[in-house]
């Protein structure tokens, strides 16, 4: 019974495909999985939009939307109807073909990443041997879409926003890759299903998730930083901040195309959170061995929504980073820490004493963090903090 509940979606897929002749069943199964992904994640997008507006509102000491349904739950539907019925304005001198294709390419690149994420036991669309490489290849294609959007609008603000966004995305792409290479090194495979299976073991009830190791925790923090920068979320949202650049690279988009950009950004956020949970938080595995009776896909989606909540929390709490600050941060602080993390993971793997390696690895990482931080701060002549109160 528990087994069936865990595999209920897989059984549903096989049952639906069984209506077709045998030669077409493989293609039908793949099509059903792809259709499910295309239906589920935009629905989650609606939930995330509501969560973001309510959550940000509460963090900023105001109510969020509360008019449209009970607690504003139907607000995403109202937003959808609004963006579908708005007039689609294209500037006169804009490059029409590229202007049209940019949001399409962004959404396609964002959705392609879901093909290799294992969302439950046996629930991966295609189990590639080089799955992680496929995911990053699709992420790299979305940078070109951002540039196309900014350039085709023939607008200085759009172009500036696009250049900033692309520079930020390529810098943090390196950090993203390096912080996940440490997981590949320890799991021994680029295949995401094997990475999850290697985390699905329990010692004294505690799981072997990679976040519960020093190098895994450091890797997860750097992955989270790079993920917020890749999806242009606060505190790295200078390319699209409203007070800075009108709306950055999607200034000249209205109506459905703007909704596509919005959808693409949130779907990219889901996809990168999904990859983060697969790599560091154990994917679909349960946190304690006595909880494995809860279906695996429930665990995956709960961890995904928790990551989305952390994204929203960061947006409501942290101030925006300036462009040169965030580039300095990427190249001079996070990248050396990533490389050091690789060496610490190697030390962890080959050190014999079980408890001493915790101390040694944590000490190396903390010393490096302090050292690099001191090296960055020394040039800034920051004095002691001073407070001024209203009289």
């Amino acid at each position: 019974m528990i087994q069936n509940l865990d595999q209920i979606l897989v059984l549903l897929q096989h049952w639906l495909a069984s209506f077709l002749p045998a030669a077409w069943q493989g293609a039908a199964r793949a099509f059903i999985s792809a259709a499910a992904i295309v239906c589920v994640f935009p629905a989650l997008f609606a939930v995330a939009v509501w969560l973001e507006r309510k959550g940000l509102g509460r963090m900023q000491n105001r109510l969020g939307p509360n008019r449209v349904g009970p607690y504003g739950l139907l607000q995403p539907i109202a937003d959808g109807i609004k963006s579908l019925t708005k007039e689609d304005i294209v500037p006169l001198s804009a490059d029409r073909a590229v202007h049209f294709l940019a949001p399409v390419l962004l959404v396609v690149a964002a959705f392609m990443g879901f093909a290799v994420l294992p969302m439950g036991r046996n629930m991966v669309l295609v189990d590639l041997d080089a799955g992680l490489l496929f995911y990053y290849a699709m992420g790299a294609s979305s940078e070109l879409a951002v540039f196309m959007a900014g350039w085709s609008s023939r607008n200085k603000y759009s172009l500036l926003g696009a250049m900033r966004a692309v520079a930020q995305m390529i810098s943090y792409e390196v950090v993203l890759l390096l912080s996940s290479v440490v997981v590949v090194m320890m799991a021994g495979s680029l295949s995401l299903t094997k990475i999850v299976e290697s985390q699905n073991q329990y010692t004294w009830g505690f799981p072997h998730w990679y976040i519960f190791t020093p190098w895994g925790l450091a890797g997860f923090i750097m992955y989270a930083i790079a993920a917020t920068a890749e999806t242009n979320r606060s505190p790295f949202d200078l390319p699209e901040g409203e007070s800075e650049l009108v709306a950055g690279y999607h200034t000249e988009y209205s109506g459905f195309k703007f909704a596509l950009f919005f959808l693409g950004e949130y779907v990219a956020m889901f996809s990168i959170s999904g990859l983060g949970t697969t790599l560091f938080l154990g994917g679909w595995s349960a946190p304690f061995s006595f909880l494995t009776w809860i279906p695996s896909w429930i665990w995956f989606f709960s961890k995904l929504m928790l990551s989305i909540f952390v994204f929203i929390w960061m947006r409501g709490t942290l101030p925006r980073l300036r462009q040169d600050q965030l580039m300095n941060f990427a190249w001079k602080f996070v990248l050396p820490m990533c490389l050091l993390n690789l060496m610490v993971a190697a030390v962890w793997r080959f050190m014999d004493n079980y408890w001493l390696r915790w101390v040694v690895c944590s000490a190396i990482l903390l010393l490096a963090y302090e050292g690099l931080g001191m090296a960055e701060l020394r040039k800034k002549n920051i004095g002691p903090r001073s407070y001024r109160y209203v009289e």
Partner: protein
Amino acid sequence: MSLVFYLITALTVAGGLASMLLKNTVHCALAVTVAFAGLAFFFLNLDAQFAGFAQILVYIGAVAILVVFAILLTKGSETPKDGVFSRTWLSGLAIAAAVFAMLGWAILHTASMLPGATPVPTVTVRQIGQALIGRYVLPLEIVAVLLTVALIGAVIVAMHEKEGTK
């Protein structure tokens, strides 16, 4: 020669032709990106998955963006007043046609000596990793040094020279 092969060929050759014939430089860069994607599909069709994904990651994710940044920084999107093709375009075209004719003749002439259908090779990423560290470790290290030198060289070449310093 399956239908998939012809479709990918059409996509790639269309992208290549568009990139060499269009007037707007950014459109040419985007068309060559389509050609890169077509080549990645060719690699996937030839069961070289690692090379295919590496092609997308490196060429579309890095080289195409480099090219569009260079076009932006050199104001390449303004159309030149003398047209987009150089004065000696006819001789260039003739040379390219001659190269294609010679290569095509060589391929078709020796087509009977080429192997036919061979079994699909199963290549895992683990084998690639072991080959890189085992048999091909020297090229790997040389490419690492080469990339470092290219990075430093490109930064130095394109750096703004401050007034008064050399």
